[in-house]
């Protein structure tokens, strides 16, 4: 029953599928982000409290969401690779980490730029931003652990286990930071991202969210190709592929 899965997860199949999917993901991402940016910046009405500064939400919220999504997908891929010994899972995890980390940085910087007009300071130890910072540390740990071994396979598995441990900890960190923040600060901190949003503001946000996810899919495919290629450089199919390409 699972043979189709193993066939799908074989390195040459993944290499080919990723190559085929990447342009579609990136094209769709370009459309969604173009719509979201134009509608969000030019047509959505300004927030009645935050004015035009709220437009930062259109890059901040999707990047924060993506940073978490990329981490969970990295842990999932690593966990699958650990349990069922599917090597491609490690390649996916290795490809996801730098993308996720880059969006974590983006979420932190945009959150801080948003904080300046809202809180009067670039960094207010807001619980969400603090969790985001800890998430960046988790990414750093996973990425450096992967490179810390003589044998690449060992680093892969160690990084996968750490990512899984980290994913168990992410909600604990999130709630403990929230609890911690409720001790120290009252309602002075302006809330970022309100639950109830006018549809004219919400549509561009959803488009941006979708666009960021599609971009992640596209870049993940691109990175995954490189990752699979360098991991499989001794394999026969890679040699055949390269020879076929150079003859053309």
């Amino acid at each position, binding site marked *: 029953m699972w043979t189709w899965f193993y066939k799908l997860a074989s390195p040459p199949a993944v290499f080919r599928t990723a190559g085929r999917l990447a342009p579609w993901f990136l094209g769709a991402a370009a459309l969604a982000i173009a719509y979201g940016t134009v509608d969000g910046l030019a047509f959505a009405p300004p927030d009645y409290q935050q004015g035009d500064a709220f437009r930062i939400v259109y890059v901040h919220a999707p990047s924060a969401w993506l940073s978490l999504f990329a981490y969970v997908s990295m842990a999932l891929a690593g966990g699958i690779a650990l349990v069922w010994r599917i090597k491609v899972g490690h390649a996916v995890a290795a490809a996801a980490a730098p993308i996720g980390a880059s969006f974590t940085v983006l979420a932190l910087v945009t959150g801080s730029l948003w904080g300046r007009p809202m809180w009067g300071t670039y960094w207010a130890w807001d619980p969400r931003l603090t969790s985001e910072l800890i998430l960046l540390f988790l990414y750093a740990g996973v990425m450096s652990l992967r490179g810390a071994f003589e044998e690449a396979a060992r680093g892969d598995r160690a990084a996968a286990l750490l990512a899984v441990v*980290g994913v*168990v900890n992410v909600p604990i960190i999130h709630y403990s930071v929230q609890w911690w923040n409720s001790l120290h600060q009252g309602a002075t901190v302006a809330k970022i991202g309100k639950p109830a949003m006018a549809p004219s503001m919400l549509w561009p946000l959803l488009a941006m969210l979708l666009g960021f996810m599609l971009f992640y899919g596209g870049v993940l495919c691109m990175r995954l190709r490189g990752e699979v290629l360098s991991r499989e450089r001794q394999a026969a199919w890679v040699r055949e592929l390269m020879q076929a390409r150079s003859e053309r």
Partner: protein
Amino acid sequence: MSRVGAFAALRLVVVRELKLAFRRPDQLLQPLVFFLMVTTLFPLGLNLRLSLLREIGPGVLWVAALLASMLSLDALFRNDAEDGTLEQLALSGHGLTVIVVAKTLAHWLVSGAALVLVSPLVATALAIPVEAFPVMAASLTLGSLALSWLGAIGAGLTVGAKRGNVLLSLIVLPLAMPLLIFGAAAIDRVIGGGDASGPLYLLAALCTFATTLAPFAAAAALRITLE
């Protein structure tokens, strides 16, 4: 070869670890001295503004305890992994998990529990009132035990790594941040005359959670790096 039960094996390994630890008292004392030293740095850096020191005391105490625990963590599995003892223990038929539990408990006794014992000294220097000592001891006990479990995962993951020590802190400290939050908050609350049971219960919950899951994760980590 006599068959020993899992608990007997656990006790044997703990006793062995403790004997080994007390044979090298300098390694036992160094983290404690480091703990004292870090807490000395703060009053010096704050130019003796004692009121300020009183306010940040619990945080300083906890950060110093965290950093001091990081120091001894690297040795948790490294020596035994390098001379092959760990593989022998793993082959003893009791499974790596039992070995991990035994080694971590022994490590906690000589590092975490020792920190708890020294903490009144440090707390006095940081102007933490005596009435807060029971809560402080409880928070440090629960926190350091949970930290030892997290540390066991980290030490297991980095035992075969090229440059383990800094990497170990990089891995474990983010995971330990909730412990710091609740641990310092418990002391903070009791100093402020409040009720410290909330953060202590949360700390106990985290400690229980770590105690149930971390041994398996740490054993899996060791298996990855030893294989």
